[in-house]
């Protein structure tokens, strides 16, 4: 399992990237998708995920929509236009960062 610290630092990018690929997602969907893509390597806890989602919402990068599904409310998150820009930027800077890290660690 990947260390919590690393997930914490990158969760923002993960959420932004996933949402930029999908029109809208809800919390559970995000955790499942991450699990799937990483082959159970990264498992997001709600302790980390929901604060991040809400923070992004408060920053105006996400908007939410609540739909009643199967007798319960489900909250979907999607990117705002500002969120889209931020997503591109942050993913790019993450790759730059990884490149730099590689240089440092593989030296």
């Amino acid at each position, binding site marked *: 399992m990947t260390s919590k610290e690393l997930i914490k630092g990158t969760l923002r990018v993960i959420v932004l990237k996933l949402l930029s690929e999908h029109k809208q997602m*809800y*919390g*559970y969907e995000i*955790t499942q998708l991450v699990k799937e893509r990483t082959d159970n390597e990264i498992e997001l*806890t*709600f*302790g980390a995920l*929901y*604060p*991040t989602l*809400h*923070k992004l*919402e*408060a920053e105006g990068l996400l908007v939410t929509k*609540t739909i009643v*599904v*199967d*007798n*319960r*409310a*489900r*909250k979907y998150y999607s990117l705002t236009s500002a969120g889209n820009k931020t997503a591109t930027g942050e993913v790019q800077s993450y790759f730059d960062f990884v490149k730099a890290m590689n240089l440092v660690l593989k030296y």
Partner: protein
Amino acid sequence: MPLSKSEIDYIRYDLRKKGLTGGDLFEELVDHVCCEVEQRVGEGHAFKKAYEEVIQNIDPALWPDLQNKVHLSENYNALTMLRNLLKMMLRNMNKHRVHATINIVGLSLGLACFIMIALYLRHERGYDTMFTQSASIYRITASSTVGGTTNHIPTTFPAFGPEIKARFGEDIGSYTRIINYKYTRMVPTFRHDENVFYEEKVIFADSSFFDLFDFPFSEGHPANALTHPNAVVISRKMEEKYFGGQSALGKTLRFNDRADLEVTGVVKDLPSNTHVQFDFVIPLSNIASSGVFKDAKFLEEYNNDWFWTYFTIKDPSRAPIIEAGINKIASDKLPDFQKDFNAQFYIQSLRDVHLHSDFDYNTDLAQNGNIKNLYIFISVGILVLVISAINFINLTMATASRRFKEIGISKVLGALKSHLRLQFILESVVVCLVALCFALLILQLMLPLFSSLLAVSLSLDMWENASLMGGIFLFTILVGVASGAYPAFFISSFEPQRVLKGVWKSGKAGNGGFRKLLVGAQIAISIFLIIGTIVIARQLRFMQDKSLGYDKDQIIMVTIRGTNVPGSYFSFKNNLLSESSIVSVSSVSEPIGREVQFMSFAVEGKEKTQFVKILNVTHDFVKTMGLEIVQGRDFSRDQATDSTAGFIINEAAARAFNWDDPVGKALDHAGRPVKLGSVIGVVKDFNFEPLQKKIDPIVIWFGWPRWYAAVRVEKGKTTEALAAIEREWKRFEPGKPLSFHFLDQSIDQVYNNERRLSKVFMIFSVLSIFTAVLGLYGLISFVAEQRLAEIGIRKVLGASVSSILYLISKEYVLLVVAAFLLAAPVTYLIVDQWLQNFAFRIAWSPLYFVSGLLISGAIVVITVALKAVKAARSNPVDTLKYE
């Protein structure tokens, strides 16, 4: 496979039980958990088992923490939170305008009063602390006991100064002797060109005066200002008065039309809190210019005890040794005096002068303060503050329950306990701070009024009073926190569904009792203030109205001492008597109504020397003053011996001398063989001294007119009489202005301190009652609102309006009675202490207590009724339809 509705409800229920509060996030989490469970159920697990597994995977203990995190991430902006809070607060206040106003007005009044009193206290305690050497300055005071009466005076013999310096040179720094011009019982004049005025505040002092009392000079040098005899140092006010806007330095003032004095210094305006008050200081070496002494030789003698002696002690712990030393000097130099008068000498620290002096004859340099009155002021100030703080706490607590719905909704929407607590506390702190701002505003408006009422100059200088302001600020915050804490901790812990359903109502138990206790305390304080105000006002009234044994109205006292009028007194008198506006004229040695001096007599039938107070008068004194002769006669022009060997005594004297038949009894000088004379008449006792004093024996004898002329004026003709006096004055004394006072006014002035106390008491009791009523009104309106439904049901069941009124007001009336029972004895003890100051005082009457009870009771009942009537008359249909 989707979960069924009941399964989802189970999950909801269980999550709530595990400590999650409702809200947006809660729904999200439920959905998340449901998805996980659905997945497991899809893999073939039973619902219960799947749920358990999901829950096990995520530690629910962390969930409240998660909610916290989410909220923090949302509300990371403290400013936003504050803004929201303020918005909520303003909306709330707007919704309950009356309560908000009561809250703020009440508290700001209390704070304003308290700050005002604190400023006054600071002023009084700061007396005489402005001198560099304040802490080490002392003065000599004396007491003498004659005829069983002990008198304290702050003045002693001039020779003490040099003598203590000679004996205790190592301990004593420097000394200065001061004598007030008033010892001559004259009022001096100063003249510069056309400007000539009588001056009251003239002192003579040693050249070291400004070493001890280092008042800042605006012109001249303190060190050599008093070195040459013909110098005079004046206050800036006098510079303005005599020299207009010009510099006085080096200019000449003609003193008493007798000597020219050169102005060698001008002192900046004196602070109001020093007892060393003067407008003119003349070197003691020039005392001959006062016209009473030929030279300054007597400064080395032990003859006149009219001198203040101030000195510095280098090591204050040596003070008792110096005190003993002064008494030793006295027994060395004047053993007889010490024996005859039982004289004792003390030293008094400069800092004790203002508040811890109790001297007879009103002899100090300035009117001393009264620590008792100060204590009364402080306690009243604290009481008003307590009342308003109680008010605030009480109202905030009471109205908080009004906000159950708001709190419930907030909680449903996911507000955390800590948020609600913060909200409530911040809210009441903000209201308190608003009140503080108002208080400062009120203070600005009221301070000039209060200053003139107390005859002091107070100013609200923030920097000077930094510690006071800091204290007030902290206190305000404390009141805010205390009053916010109850709703914060009590209400915020309720479960929202109960709060929303209205299950919890302000019950009779618990905080209801506590609130009632607070209201009771307020009422008790108000009762104390009401009774105190009544008694003080009655006593004052009593002193004004009491028959003094003479007729103080329609008498003009003209000061003739030190003028040419005594020399031509009889023509002056006859000229006046020819006026139809003037009834009679006499001369008298005292201004009447002030303290009177003693003389020693040998009294027929008494072996020991008697010390008796004396008045020197001329013909017609009895007639002019309106005294009543009970035996014998007044001084008569037909009896030549009356003016040489006649005495009139009062009844108190006859009693003291054990004379059943006083007329004809002999009175002689003590210790001298000379025959003086005998009693020719007895007058009924009259209050020749202030009413604080009992009526002492007095001897009235014939003395040549020198001091005052008492002129009795026809009623309604005061203006004509004054014009006549002025005209005759100009004829006999063209060089000096006329100086006179109305006897009734000057007698009234003696009670200025009491009048001041009465006014302050009155103002504060009105304020405190007002505040208490405000609070009570707020509380009752709240209670009545709370009980609207109950009242509605009662009415439906047939209760009458009056029975409902009775129901609501009953407990408050009981509260008043309980408060009264508590307050009455305390009031009696405290106010009686004050009354003991007066030899002539009103007797306690149950009426005072009854009126205290009735007034407070009436105010409470009216306040209650105002609200209760509305509640009782409301239509039950309206009040019940929402229940």
